[in-house]
């Protein structure tokens, strides 16, 4: 599903590379936590998968494609198979819940009939049945994140990327979100989640990848957030 082959990434104007010689494989259907302190390279790692950045050295394969060889105009096609969720939700404040979810389908040209069927279904799945016509501003943080997850999942992506999805939520709400992500993972969707939330990582007991100053320092199946020293 995803393969990094001694990938390095340096940004112009920065002496220290953001990623150094990272190699790893992520198989289809896995649930992976990406941990590490701020500036460790987590965001760069995710941006490389989304092809928002290109690797300086090494190869990034996503969904069987070498991203270095993927031409710019084919990138949108590739991104349609990925779902993304962020800490700040990124909802459109002037659209209702249903419209926000439908937006993800409208902009890739899905027929209207299909959208009308898929949107209530996915809202039901994330536990927002009956809140289709609410505005994002009227919802709690946890509910807004559910809308974002619904939008990321409505096109049934093969891979869901979540960048600190619980970063703005209280622990109890976070648990709900994690249960939802776990459920999505069980449908066969690969989930990669960057997080700082120790409790969540320790509870879930999934594969943990740790980055430190751009290097891969730990890759552990059924791992915890950090070594207890």
């Amino acid at each position, binding site marked *: 599903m995803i393969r990094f082959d001694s990938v390095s990434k340096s940004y112009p104007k920065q002496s220290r590379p953001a990623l150094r010689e990272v190699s790893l494989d992520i198989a289809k259907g896995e649930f992976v936590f990406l941990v590490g302190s701020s500036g460790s390279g987590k965001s760069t790692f995710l941006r490389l998968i989304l092809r928002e950045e290109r690797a300086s050295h090494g190869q990034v394969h996503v969904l069987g494609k070498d991203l270095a060889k993927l031409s710019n105009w084919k990138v*949108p096609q590739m*991104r349609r198979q990925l779902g993304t969720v962020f800490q700040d939700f990124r909802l459109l404040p002037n659209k209702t819940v249903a419209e926000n979810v439908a937006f993800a389908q409208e902009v*890739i040209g899905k027929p209207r009939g299909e959208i009308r069927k898929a949107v209530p279904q996915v809202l039901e799945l994330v536990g927002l049945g009956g809140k289709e016509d609410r505005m994002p501003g009227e919802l709690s943080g946890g509910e807004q994140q559910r809308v974002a997850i619904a939008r990321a999942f409505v096109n049934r992506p093969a891979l869901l990327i979540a960048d600190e999805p619980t970063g703005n939520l209280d622990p109890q709400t976070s648990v709900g979100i994690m249960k939802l992500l776990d459920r999505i993972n069980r449908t066969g969707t690969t989930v990669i989640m960057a997080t700082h939330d120790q409790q969540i990582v320790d509870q879930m007991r999934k594969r943990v990848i740790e980055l430190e100053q751009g290097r891969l320092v730990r890759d552990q199946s059924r791992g915890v957030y950090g070594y207890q020293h």
Partner: protein
Amino acid sequence: MRAQFVMSEIGVGLRRNLTMTFAVIISVALSLALFGGSLLMSEQVGKMKGFWYDKANVTLYLCNKQDAQEAGDAAAKNGTPGVATCAKGAVTEDQKKQIEAELKQMSLVKSVAYESADEAYKHYQERFGNTALASSITPDQMQESFRVKLKDPEKYKVVTSAFAGRDGIHTVDDQRQAIDDLFKILNYLNMAAIGIMLIMLVVALLLIVNTVRVSAFSRRRETGIMRLVGASSFYIQVPFIMEAAVAGLIGALFACAMLVSGQYFVIDHGVGLREKIQLIDFMGWGSVLAKLPYVLFIGLLMPSMAAFIALRKYLKV
């Protein structure tokens, strides 16, 4: 892609930047009105040129006794006889025949008409009637002349150089010279209009670039999400380009309205130049209407191009 969705996005975008949209519409309208105006003006000038050149003659004025007298007086004063025209006296019958024969031989000449002093006097009286000036003139003072029409009006200088300064010829007067000066002025005016049009067009395009930048910034949330869910760059860019195109088209429609009402109110009715200046053969509706597609086309194309170029810079896709 769904048209209704795209259209509603365009409407939202245009309303959000209402003041900027107005600025774009006005500057596009002005520049395109000037563009259409200068197209019409150069067509009008071309038409007038044909009309006037056709009517204009080269006139060879012949020396009469009075001219000879004056030339003699002047020569006596300066002590250099024979320099001024008509110094060798009034035109003789032989000279007249010679000049007429030579004129008729020139391949350039279409027709030659002789006007006697008496005829000239009659024409003069007709034109100036019973003014003080007219009553002080006698037939003696009028000059005989040859009125020459040319096959190719542009070549009047050949006649001028062949006959100017000959014995018996007072002056060679080509009316085209005067007309040329008029056209030169019209030409400068037209160039000035084109210059202003270009400046306005640049202003319009810069405004569009700025509008696109602002609207790309205010919609970065939408475009960011579009990008993440895999909307094609074309799909993301189309609303911005359409916004510019719609604003440009509205501006072009205003420009068309200005041209049409210019023809209607200034030339046909209202000021009514066609009625007042009958010497000028003004162009008709056909010419005006023929320019409108160009105005609309440019009004649609230029803003879209400007938006497209601006998007390369301000919208990451």
